[in-house]
Each structure stands twice: as structure tokens, then as C-alpha cells.
């Protein structure tokens, strides 16, 4: 069970919008591990000083990772089978 401090995709709406140029919270993602289909706003979001990790709410597999390195945001979406 995900803990009380866990957020959801709404919390990274601003970051996603500045990265992708559009609102992504309503976009649909498909988990590459279990196939769960959900809107980005419904994903489990973990934020720390090191970066942001986004997990599938069903199987907890990592879907997206965001890390800022010297002013550049590095984005890893390999955990997603589809995003759009």
C-alpha cells in the first residue's frame, strides 16, 4: 500500500507542462509492466531532492524518472508502454 506522503501526477503538472509544452495530467499512460491504463494524474509520484519517480499505482513499477542535471531535466519514460 502506498504511503501517506505519496502524491499523484497533479503534483508534477507544472514540470510536465514545461517539458512537454502541454498539459499532461489528463494524458493516458500504459504501464509497461502490468498493462494498467491510467491518466498521468492518477500515477503515484515520489519527489525528493534527487528527482522525481513516477510509479504505476497497480504494480508499483517505475514508469517515469525525472532528474535535473546542471539545469537540464533528464527524462526517462522507459517504464511506460505508451503515453499520449
Amino acid at each position, binding site marked *: 500500500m502506498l504511503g501517506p506522503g*505519496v*502524491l499523484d501526477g*497533479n503534483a508534477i503538472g*507544472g514540470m510536465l507542462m514545461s517539458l512537454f*509544452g502541454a498539459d499532461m*495530467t489528463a494524458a493516458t499512460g500504459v504501464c509497461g509492466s502490468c498493462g494498467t491504463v491510467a491518466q498521468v494524474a492518477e500515477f503515484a509520484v515520489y519527489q525528493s531532492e534527487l528527482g522525481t519517480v513516477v510509479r504505476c499505482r497497480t504494480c508499483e513499477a517505475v514508469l517515469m524518472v525525472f532528474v535535473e542535471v546542471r539545469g*537540464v531535466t533528464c527524462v526517462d519514460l522507459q517504464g511506460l508502454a505508451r503515453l499520449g
Partner: protein
Amino acid sequence: MAGTAVRGRLTWQTATVASVLDETPSVRTVLLEVPEWPGHRAGQHLDVRLTAEDGYQAERSYSIASAPGEPVAITVERLEDGEVSPYLTQELRAGDQIEVRGPIGGYFVWEAATGGPLLLAAGGSGVVPLRAILRYRVMVGSPVPVRLLYSSRSWADVIYQDELSRPSPGVSVIHTLTRSHPDGWTGYTRRVDAAMLAQVAFRASAGPLAYVCGPTNFVEAVAAGLVGLGYPAGRVRTERFGASGQ
């Protein structure tokens, strides 16, 4: 790992504080003048960025408390160990400037065309975006029935007390006070649970749309409860604020 930083149209801009209003001992509404504000939809939020003298920056997201067309306002709850909220609720004055970016969000948004009936569930400061929805509903004259289930620690912690005490036609506000309640209180006095939802929520057969906002634990419990009552998961929209800090 792919490295991309694609620039969108969402940029930081400087907002000036027009006025501040204390809603409760720990909650303050800040009205902002944002020169390049493009307008917003009910339920959206904005990000605030503070920069310290040493260059340290902190960003936080706050739901927009005002309806589309009204001056931009955010309502901030002061968290005891917060980095940003103590400044926004205690230090900030009219004339001060902060950086904001927004509006943000296309999921936790309600427009009249979306319909209802609407079941709004608020835990603490989760009431903020729901109040924007209520104001917008009045503004556009929507006849959609609304029930707002609002959980607070005590009556003193209820935000927008006056406004919610005079709900517009078609709107019912049901409070639950979880830690203490006034003498003579006849309302709910416990955390939201399945039994309370069964009494308060619209029947699933009415095709309601639910918006649930507040601390993560609250949102999880209410969303699960509504699905248990037969609400399709796709008809329950959620916005989690994290640990309540209390």
C-alpha cells in the same frame, strides 16, 4: 537515459500580492495580480517559486481558490515544518512579489458541460479547488446538484466558513469535524468512512462525477469508498496533497 528539456509556453512570471485574508488561524488566502495571466479553469492550480538571498529556490503547488474570471487567488495552509507555507501565510504582504507559473492541470477540472451530479469531497485544505468549482458553477448558472462533504479537524479549521454556510441553491454542504466540535453540534464527528459516504454520496445510479481532494490518506479512503459504492473509477477524480503534516 534520454536527456531532453523541451520548452513549453508555461513560464515563470512575477505576481504582486494585492491583498491577504486570514481564513483560519493557520490558513490565509492571497490575492494576486498576475499581469500575463491567461485565465484559468475551476480546479486548476499554480506553482509558486521563492528564491532566497543565497539563491536557494523552493517550489510548491497551490490550488487556485477563485473562479475563472475572478482575480487569481490561492489559499495556503501553514504547515508546521513547511519551507514555503510559513512565509506565504505569515510574512507576505500586499505589494510583495512572488514568482508563479500557471494555470496547470487538465484532469482535476470541472466545466459546466461536464455535467453532474457532483460529489465533492474535501479533506482540510483540499476544499480549495472545490470552492473554485462551486464559485464557477454559480457564475455560469449551472443547475447541476452538488454535495460537498468537507472534513476538518474542528470548526475553527473550516475554511470559507461564511461562504459555505450560505450555499447556493442545489448545493448541500455536509461537514464532519474529526478532532473536536462545538457544543450542540449535531453533524458528523469522525473521519470519512464507507458508512458516511453511503449516507452522503449521490447514488451511483444517478451517474455522479466525484472530485476528491486533500491529504493522501483521505483521498485514498474516499476514492476507495466511492468505488465500493459503485462509482466507476473513471468518474472519481483525485488530487492528493501528501501527508497532512498534523
